[in-house]
């Protein structure tokens, strides 16, 4: 992760790399992925408004995250992120650190993998943090960079990397370095922007991550955004209710839980949470009815439902 000249490194080690590639190709471990653009994409894209922060030694993680956050509307200096995402004993950052760091700033952290997804996101003008290995598998030199564009006619990916902004790297070289991380990429998005090829399960996981980080407002936005795409998503409605409840919006929470109950009528869980929200709204009779509805439906969480009912009844009787 020493800031340096990639092409320079590669010139020196070129024949060596070639020998290793031949060897690996024989083992079948190198699989090249075609860099194909989604249809009707512009031939050249450079994402605007991605700030560039030159990294200090070993600090490519904080620098890459600061650039992606800056594009998403959160202005933060790499040095401010260092305590959150940098582990001195490893002289680097783990992927999970970057994900957690993005969430702590109220941003969706959405991992992607493969060139198809990378190019699709770039074509839609979103930068992508990429993990590359600039060394060899037996001498790894892991590095985070931010892909900010591509040039299809020239066959190049454009990166903010190390101390160099707007570095162009041929698809071939880039893919060689990137495939060693399993082509891992990370989108850092405002919670109202869905990735191009978004999967409900993955978006939900990212939204739950925001809840976990205590970013309930961002989580609520993420769930609302999900409902525009998947209006009948049970998990999304529960998440919406829970994040509203955490923010003290009890009536809104109750509304979300009722919608969830309508989608899975045999599930007691939305009634359990509805009961709690109604009780705190002072609507005790309705709360007891909802808690009873949860217990009637049973399921693996029946014990919790019974506890909710018992507690609400005990407090209502006071």
């Amino acid at each position, binding site marked *: 992760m020493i800031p340096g000249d990639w092409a320079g490194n590669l010139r020196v080690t070129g024949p060596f790399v070639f020998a290793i590639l031949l060897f690996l190709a024989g083992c079948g471990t190198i699989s090249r992925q075609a860099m194909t653009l989604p249809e009707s994409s512009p031939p050249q894209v450079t994402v605007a408004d991605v700030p560039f922060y030159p990294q200090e030694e070993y600090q490519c993680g904080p620098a890459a995250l600061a650039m992606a956050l800056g594009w998403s509307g959160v202005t933060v200096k790499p040095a401010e992120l260092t305590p959150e995402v940098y582990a001195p004993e490893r002289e680097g950052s783990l992927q999970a650190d970057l994900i957690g760091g993005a969430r702590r700033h109220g941003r969706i952290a959405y991992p992607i993998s493969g060139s198809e997804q990378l190019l699709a996101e770039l074509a839609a003008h979103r930068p992508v943090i990429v993990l590359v290995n600039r060394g060899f598998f037996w001498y790894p030199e892991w590095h985070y960079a931010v892909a900010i564009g591509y040039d299809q006619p020239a066959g190049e990916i454009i990166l903010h990397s190390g101390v160099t902004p707007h570095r162009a790297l041929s698809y071939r070289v880039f893919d060689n370095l990137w495939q060693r991380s399993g082509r891992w990429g990370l989108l850092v998005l405002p919670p109202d922007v869905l990735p191009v090829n978004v999967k409900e399960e993955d978006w*939900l996981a990212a*939204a*739950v991550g925001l*809840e*976990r980080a205590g970013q309930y407002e961002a989580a609520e936005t993420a769930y609302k955004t999900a409902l525009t795409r998947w209006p009948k998503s*049970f*998990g999304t409605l*529960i*998440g919406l209710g*829970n*994040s509203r*409840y955490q923010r003290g919006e009890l009536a809104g929470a109750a509304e979300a839980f009722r919608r969830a109950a309508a989608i*899975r009528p045999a*599930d007691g*869980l939305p009634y*359990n*949470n509805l009961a*709690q929200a109604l009780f705190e709204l002072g609507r005790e009779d309705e709360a007891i009815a909802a808690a009873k509805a949860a217990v009637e439906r049973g*399921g*693996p*969480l029946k014990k*919790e439902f019974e*506890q*909710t009912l018992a*507690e609400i009844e005990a*407090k209502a009787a006071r």
Partner: protein
Amino acid sequence: MLRATTKVVSMFVIFSLLMFDFTVPAAKARMIDTETAIAVMRHQDDRARIAAFLERQDVQQAMIRYGVDPDEAKDRVASLTDSEVRQLAQAMDKLPAGGDGVGAVLFALLLVFFVLLFTDIMGYTDVFPFVHKGSGRK
């Protein structure tokens, strides 16, 4: 001296415990979090899908042909843990729906998977690492 100190400390601890209002945090804990909600829903859906698969006429006939008692199969799936059910459901997802000639082949493959799963559980084979060996039949 020591006794007196112990007494003071004990009184302090008892008093502090009495000061706590346990009901308020417990009330918050009654909300079931989103992660749990999603996990429970997924497990229920997986189990329902596997159960529906085992109920299919062609599946039942095929199981009988392979010497697997369909009721026994249902019992075995019911005894799998949630993570095992998840893996099984994902394995099912990877196979396209049967019906045509290709489907029949895939169906046979899937059946082999099921048969091995059952024999794994019974301790005759050891193909799937996620199957915990029990003492054989229940």
